[in-house]
């Protein structure tokens, strides 16, 4: 795990561009260490934060790193509310606040299991970074993403050897990405599943893997106020009846530890 410098610091928007329904954001972060796959950052615009719908956003927002080397960071985000709306409108050269890298990322598969990376929507970034890491370490991986439609799937065009599913059948498999996962697990269950995506998808992956006894590392999302364990707001329920803080105990948690993936 990469330690974060203490406090928030200023990054600078190096570039931002739209690919289909998503925005790809490149930041200059001279002072931070490189993130590990699965780690995330809390981001906020320096100006214009707080002027959106209902006078929000107020708090910073969590985003998984999609990559990070040499003082550059990459993110992918979807404009779904006042926070992402403002960030999607960053200008090249504009400063923004960042804290991170935060949280625990993915761990290598054990026992020679082959990694299957199954995700979708804004769950793409950590899996892309993890995929790259595996490839760089000579580990073959299966990568599969689910999207709503062509416009969302567009972001995957540049990824190598990826299986795609879309809800509307416009690209790849017509149906859920978990259909693709089942196909892979049926073919060869000696695998470790890595997953990130909307709660419904993650919950389906969790059940599937727990039912079949297949190790799965789920990168969770959750509403966060702080991202560094201060507020106890980002919890998810564990099987032992306690709660885990996604920001410091996760975001990557073992499927077997989780009671379920909450809808929010």
């Amino acid at each position, binding site marked *: 795990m990469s*330690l*974060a410098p203490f406090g928030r610091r200023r990054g600078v928007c190096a570039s931002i561009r739209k690919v289909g329904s998503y925005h790809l954001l490149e930041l200059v972060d001279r002072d931070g260490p490189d993130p590990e796959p699965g780690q995330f950052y809390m981001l906020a615009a320096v100006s214009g934060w707080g002027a959106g719908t209902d006078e929000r956003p107020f708090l910073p927002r969590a985003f998984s790193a999609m990559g990070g080397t040499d003082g550059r960071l990459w993110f992918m985000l979807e404009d779904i509310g006042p926070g992402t709306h403002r960030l999607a409108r960053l200008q090249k050269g504009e400063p923004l606040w960042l804290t991170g890298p935060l949280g625990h990322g993915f761990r290598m598969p054990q026992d020679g299991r082959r990694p299957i990376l199954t995700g979708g929507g804004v769950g793409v970034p950590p899996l892309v970074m993890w995929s790259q890491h595996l490839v760089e370490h000579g580990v073959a991986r299966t990568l599969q993403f689910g999207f709503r439609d062509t416009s969302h799937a567009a972001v995957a065009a540049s990824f190598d050897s990826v299986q795609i599913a879309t809800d509307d059948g416009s690209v790849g498999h017509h149906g859920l990405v978990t259909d693709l996962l089942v196909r892979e697990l049926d073919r060869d269950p000696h695998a470790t599943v890595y997953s990130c995506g909307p709660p419904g998808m993650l919950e389906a992956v969790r059940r599937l893997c727990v039912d079949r006894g297949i190790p799965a590392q789920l990168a969770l999302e959750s*509403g966060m106020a702080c991202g*560094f364990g201060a*507020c*106890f707001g980002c*919890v998810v329920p564990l099987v032992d009846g306690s709660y885990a803080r996604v920001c410091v105990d996760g975001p990557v948690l073992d499927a077997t530890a989780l009671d379920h993936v909450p809808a929010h």
Partner: protein
Amino acid sequence: MPPVDFCGMELAHPIVNGSGTFDAIAAHAVFGDALHEHFPFAAFVSKTITIAPRAGNPPPRLWETASGMINSIGLPNKGLAGYLESDLPKLAALPVPLITNVMGSTAAELCELVAACDEQDAIRAIELNVSCPNVKTGLDIGADPVSLAEVMRAVRPRTRKPLIVKLTPNTADVALVAAAAEAEGADAVSLINTLRATAQKPGASGEPWLGGVTGGMSGPAVRAVALAQVSAVAARVSIPVIGMGGVQRGEHAAQMLRAGATLVAVGTESFRDPAAGSRIARELRRLLEP
């Protein structure tokens, strides 16, 4: 900015944290030793400890409001024994004095908590969170000067350490409650705790968003309410006051001090900026030493 004397503790500056808004143990894991080297607060206030361990409320626990937030955390903690055993040694290693915040739903529970803290050298002061419903009246103990006085009479004799009463803002006249605390031997009062608030799920159901149904609002949205309550309390009591609620920069801290506070606590702003405490102390210093 000279050191501040607070109930016999000499603090480097007047900025501390609000209970439950900074987990120094988790933050050390995240930020490493830099946290201790640049510790943002002049004293550290623990989150609220109860006798039995609590898991806290089911999620969602957070809602963002206009210029603020609601939390419905539900006081998760390891319980008194767990706190003393696993947290206290780590908190004792912080470079600043430790204040332990405790809550009980009866005077007996509070007595037990306070007596246990009294035995710990590492605990320099005890803060009573009285935002807990009185089993008899249903009202929060801290919302009612009579209930509070009763509790204080039981608890006060259990410790010679400084006893701080953390007042609830959800009351008709907070100065009346503060005066009751002072009369029964409180060494200081702190305020404001969060304002009772709620939110609905997006969509037409009208169902509560928060797992705990209602929660407490904090952040800049409450600052003007906090300043009014701190002013009213500081004008009424002679014991020191810890002022908090929406403090985001040195100027806000200065306003709390001008209103009569001795210390200023920072809560929600630390979520936006983990080092907010140091920044605010620095800004305050610049304002006070022009």
